């Protein structure tokens, strides 16, 4: 099991990575909001855009996982419920990461 110190550091490390990426993504969303399907897809054809988006979503999901686990640790009293909730959070996080990675690879290579 990972130590709480390394989780604390990862929470902050992912936060620092997310600061510039969030500004970049919100800016891109303003541009993408007027785009049709083909234009959005061509945005992700760019390896640069796809890579940044990949880092963004992985960092975001991991940051979210750590944050939600902290909240569960603080507020869920039942030991069993705590276990189940954390398992649910992990499953959802890793499934989303996997499907996002596959989707991005598929878009970039198509």
């Amino acid at each position, binding site marked *: 099991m990972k130590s709480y110190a390394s989780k604390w550091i990862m929470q902050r490390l992912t936060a620092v990575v997310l600061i510039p990426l969030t500004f970049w993504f919100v800016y891109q969303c303003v541009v993408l909001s007027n785009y049709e399907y083909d234009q959005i897809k061509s945005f992700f054809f760019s390896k640069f855009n796809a890579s940044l988006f990949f880092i963004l979503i992985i960092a975001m999901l991991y940051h979210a996982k750590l944050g939600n686990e902290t909240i569960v640790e603080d507020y869920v009293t039942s030991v069993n419920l705590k276990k189940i909730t954390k398992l649910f959070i992990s499953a959802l996080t890793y499934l989303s990461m996997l*499907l996002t990675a596959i*989707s991005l690879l598929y878009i970039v290579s198509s």
Partner: protein
Amino acid sequence: MSLNRPLSPHLSIHKKVLTAVFSIFHRFTGICLSIGAILLSLWIILIALGPNYYVKFQNISSLVFFKVFLFLWTLTIFYHLYNGIRYLFWSYGKMMELNTVYRSGYAVIILSISSTILVWISI
């Protein structure tokens, strides 16, 4: 051992001071943004699946309700982002004097609202 005791942080027994409200909101917006991250994954999956599936997203995104949802999402992102930057400074023991804490707190509110407005007038 009784599990009915109140767990730390004791939300219900303290007077609501600004720092506590900011902290609760940080956690609340964090949970909302986690759901947002999953939705973002679904969006990219729909793009990969092709135009026939992406239409399902476009059907929802054309609704007025969706614009309201996106507006709140923008505000939530900026609040969590700016308040998170404040917490990063705190992790290094910086900006922790009481009046700096309050001033940076108000700055978070002003920056979140103005950034959200800037995004929505640019669209």
